[in-house]
């Protein structure tokens, strides 16, 4: 039921966005157990295709529009993500995972080009320009980090069939997303984060979150053959730890709760004045927007032109029994769904929302994710390793069909023939199963050293209430001396795998992403070249010197050598020095 309403909300938002309205924004807030809050910002603006082509930009950001035109990009998806979505306690992902990327930066785009080579050169143009616009290292997406997925992504926009589109996908799992990426993100908004819900976005709070994802999607939306809009859809999703966010800005260091304020389990036998078994908090924590974000919403963004679209500017997804206080000028609307309350924003007056502390209120039921996935690197040693991917289907009735897509860097060379599957059924017995029983289809493009990474796409089907573990072995390549980064011993990032679950009932697929991995590679001692030079030089010099001396020296007996030396001036002086030294030694030994 909950899924249905969240989806219907999304669909309403989508339809509002794609209508004549030029700009639309809203904020969804939802408390998550144990004491977190999901804040989901969404900003949508569009422009007509004709003014986009003539470069007359009103709400559509000019910088982004010019980049897209310069790179012949028809559809763009850019994600900046950090942290991990804890699906065990937070349930299914916001937007069904459609608006998030793997850890770091993920970019995929449909580029119009006559052939693959032109498409790739346009792709490089696109990454270079976006890198400058978003202050991210997107320019490091080169051919080794670029793939062309076959079945994992579908275009979200309406494209005419005559266009020759190429899908390119690139990831930067090691990119640290931070404030310098948020500032250009906010500059793309028509209200610049100075009015409307975007005024809450602040780098200090945003990047302090347990999980955050920023996304930008640009796609063409056509209602008729000649009536096309170009839509830019920006979202920011964050999961805030309520307690952590409520810390005052001037005094952010967490301190232990004083002893007299601890709630202790007095029934424990060891409970005394100085030993305490803390009880779990039963009351729902109270919070307000000002406390969590450090500021209030500074009025509505007046560009949302129709009154109706301002109605759902701030929506709260919370149990109906909880009390919610809002600023007096706003209008509250309850949706047919009991769990959702929406508020309209007053123009140019600060808006705040307070949810006071309340004892044991009913929770909003959370959706369970359709699939759990986990990916780890196993094995030991510098040469070989293995990948283990665990899929878990929590449903007791339905089997899950999905696409598993991963790109591996070229220095990780998988052996696909070692791909094995073990299944734990509902009976709890582990057994080896032939991979063909689970994997319906495989698309595999082996990597080429220093040119492209490995691309693996598997279509899998998981029976109900079962856990499947896929494993395969890989070999670690040895890199060239100059290919190591400065922090070589930290390990090398392996991009997260993308899982696309088909959801026929909604039409839009559900996306999951695993965490990114760190691959330790054999790292040399970086003073090696000098050692090699010194050592080989010494060996060569030794060999050369002895051979050369053998060839050109004349061999005489020791006596003859003395006689020869005595003939020369230097030899005579040397002899005298030796004699002098002998005399001194002789004297000193006598004294002893």
């Amino acid at each position, binding site marked *: 039921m909950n899924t249905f309403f969240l989806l219907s909300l999304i669909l309403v938002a989508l339809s509002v966005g794609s209508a004549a309205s030029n700009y639309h924004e809203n904020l969804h807030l939802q408390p998550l157990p144990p004491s977190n809050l999901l804040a989901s910002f969404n900003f949508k603006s569009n422009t007509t295709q004709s003014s986009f082509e003539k470069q007359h930009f009103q709400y559509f950001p000019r910088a982004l529009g010019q980049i897209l035109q310069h790179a012949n990009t028809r559809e763009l998806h850019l994600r900046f993500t950090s942290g991990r979505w804890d699906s065990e306690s937070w349930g299914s992902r916001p937007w069904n995972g459609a608006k998030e990327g793997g850890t770091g930066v993920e970019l995929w785009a449909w580029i119009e080009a006559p052939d693959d080579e032109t498409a790739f050169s346009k792709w490089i143009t696109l990454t270079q320009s976006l890198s400058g616009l978003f202050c991210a290292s997107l320019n490091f997406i080169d051919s080794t980090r670029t793939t062309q997925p076959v079945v994992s992504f579908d275009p979200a926009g309406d494209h005419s069939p005559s266009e020759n589109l190429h899908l390119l996908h690139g990831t930067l799992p090691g990119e640290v997303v931070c404030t310098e990426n948020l500032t250009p993100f906010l*500059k793309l908004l028509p209200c610049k984060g100075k009015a409307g819900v975007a005024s809450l976005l602040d780098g200090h709070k945003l990047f302090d979150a347990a999980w955050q994802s920023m996304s930008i999607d640009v796609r063409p939306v056509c209602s008729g053959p000649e009536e096309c809009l170009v839509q830019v859809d920006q979202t920011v999703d964050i999961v805030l730890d309520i307690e952590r966010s409520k810390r005052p800005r001037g005094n952010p260091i967490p301190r232990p709760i004083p002893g007299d304020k601890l709630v202790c389990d007095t029934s424990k036998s060891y409970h005394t004045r100085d030993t305490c078994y803390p009880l779990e908090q039963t009351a729902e924590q109270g919070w307000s927007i000002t406390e969590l974000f450090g500021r209030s919403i500074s009025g509505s963004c007046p560009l949302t032109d129709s009154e109706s679209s301002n109605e759902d500017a701030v929506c709260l997804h919370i149990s109906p029994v909880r009390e919610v206080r809002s600023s007096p000028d706003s209008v509250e609307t309850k949706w047919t769904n009991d769990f959702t309350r929406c508020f309209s924003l007053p123009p140019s007056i600060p808006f705040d929302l307070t949810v006071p502390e309340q004892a044991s209120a009913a929770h909003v039921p959370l959706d369970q994710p359709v699939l759990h996935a986990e990916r780890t690197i196993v094995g030991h040693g510098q040469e070989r390793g293995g990948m283990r991917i665990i899929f878990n289907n929590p449903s007791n009735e339905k089997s899950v069909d999905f696409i598993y897509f991963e790109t591996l860097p070229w220095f990780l060379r998988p052996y696909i023939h070692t791909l094995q599957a073990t299944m734990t059924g509902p009976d709890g017995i582990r057994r080896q199963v032939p991979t063909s029983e689970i994997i319906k289809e495989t698309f595999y493009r082996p990597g080429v050293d220093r040119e492209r990474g490995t691309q693996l796409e598997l279509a899998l089907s998981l029976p109900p209430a079962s856990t499947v573990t896929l494993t395969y072995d890989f070999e670690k390549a040895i890199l060239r001396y100059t290919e190591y980064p400065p922090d070589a011993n930290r390990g090398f990032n392996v991009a997260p795998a993308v899982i696309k679950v088909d959801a026929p009932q909604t039409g839009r697929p559900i996306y999951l992403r695993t965490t990114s991995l760190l691959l330790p590679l054999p790292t040399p001692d970086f003073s090696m070249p000098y050692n090699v030079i010194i050592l080989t030089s010494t060996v060569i010099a030794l060999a050369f010197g002895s051979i050369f001396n053998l060839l*050109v020296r004349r061999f005489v007996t020791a006596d003859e050598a003395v006689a020869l030396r005595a003939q020369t001036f230097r030899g005579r002086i040397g002899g005298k020095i030796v004699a002098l030294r002998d005399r001194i030694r002789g004297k000193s030994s006598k004294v002893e």
Partner: protein
Amino acid sequence: MSANHEDSESSQTAMTSKPSASSLPPPEKPNAIQTRFGVVAAFWAVILFLGFPIWWKTTSIYRAELPIQEMLDWAGGKSCRPVFPLEIRFDTPSLPDLEAQQLLRITQHTLDDLNEFSAHHLRLKLADEEAQQATEKADTALTVRLLAQDDLSSPRSLLDADTTTLDVFYPPSQIPPPSSSISPLSSYIAGELQRLFAEEKAIMAHILSNNAMGANVNTPQSPNSQAQQQISPQLAESITRRLRRSMKYAETYHLAFSLFTPGSAPSSWDIESAVQAYISPLVQVLSPISNFTIDTQVQLYASFSPTTPPPEYDETQQVWTLKEENLSAFINAAEWPLNPSIGSGPTINFILYVPAPSQSPLLVNEGKATSWIIPQWGGVFILNPPSIPTSESTKGNPPHLPANALTPAFLTFSHQLLSLLGTPQTPTSLPLRLQTLIRIRAATLLLSASSTMGSLARLTESLPSIPIPATVASSVSATLSHLSSACDSLRQGRFMAALASARVAETEAERSFFEKSMVGQMYFPDEHKVAVYLPLLGPIGVPLVLGLVKEIRRVVVGWKARRG
């Protein structure tokens, strides 16, 4: 067998030397000495004829041959003397041929007397004379139409603002008689022409005198200085200012029109029709010189930077004023999204600023101006729209700017665009000014490409360790050939062709100067090289050198002994 022989020999020497401790070894056999000489010679031969060439070959840098002297000649102005012969056609429908030629001759003579700046001179031609020589036709700068009008006492002229025609009306009595060498009509025409091209001449003199190439133009007496003395100091000052603020020449300019406002209104403007009406026609006529792209944007909530002094309220006139000295800080470069457009070529920004209703009307302090030019960057126009009541008490900006509200702004922008491109302010005819612009651009490009050649030549001479790829050499030769064709075209008065050649020369020159592989050279300090070479060369070099020294000494001693 030889080993045996040696063995026995050494044991023999050992036995014989035993009795006396200081006995000398027997003298070496000549063939042993010869063998040693051969060994040392062979080692040194390998080093000199194999090792050294390989080392030389593998560590040397490819340097393509460049015509250094020719490049320096261009930079020094020795290869080309830029001249600007302007051809002026005389259209004399009402005069007989002979009289027309006589008038032409006298006028030309008067003009030559007036002109002090020989690089820029006017050549008069009759219209029908022009028609006869179809080949090698020079661009006609101006057509003078002589029209007789009876009721005039003195000649009168009218410059058509849309074409390059000067109509001169004269009383028929002033036609010079065939024998005279001076006439009031011809001196009037000469004076008019001189006046029309005065500013262009001043600009040319300025451009040429600021360059080594131009400085050499009129040796030995340098009439340049005379030409400059002719120019009034105010004109010279304004020319310097205008040249300083005009953009550097480029193939393509991006024009970016932005609407900035500190609040949320106005959020839309009739930009398409404004561009269509005021900018597109201008871009059309400028297209022979450069290409233009146009893009526009609306930026709301654009506040001043915190360091900018805020506008002050002038009580007496009830206006908000910006101080002129604070205008440079008006653009909040850190926050306003004014990034240059993608693609090659500079961006010219035009900013339409609508102040907040609380700060309206906003004017610039002195002169109450509302617009100004930011040198080499763009222009700003402050638009104070009539405020409309939004709610009970507050007033706000209108949410939409209609086309007629944009008219003053876009007229100013088109004017600013012309001055940013370096168009002169006189005469009134736009086609004439654009022709002048073509000549100015051709001259500046010619000079800048030549000086780039000189810099490249000096750079390659002063840095012997930078590589010069073959592409640089080919770019340089392309530049030089286009420079000379530009120079030839100038001499023949074909300025469009000169500009085209100079454009190519400039791009090729820039390409050769900014060649990436010339700078992207890995840098190995000398200490590094020593650290790499020494462990090998030290232990090997010492025995080799000592062996060589011994052999040479032995040869020298033997040679001396033989002579003595």
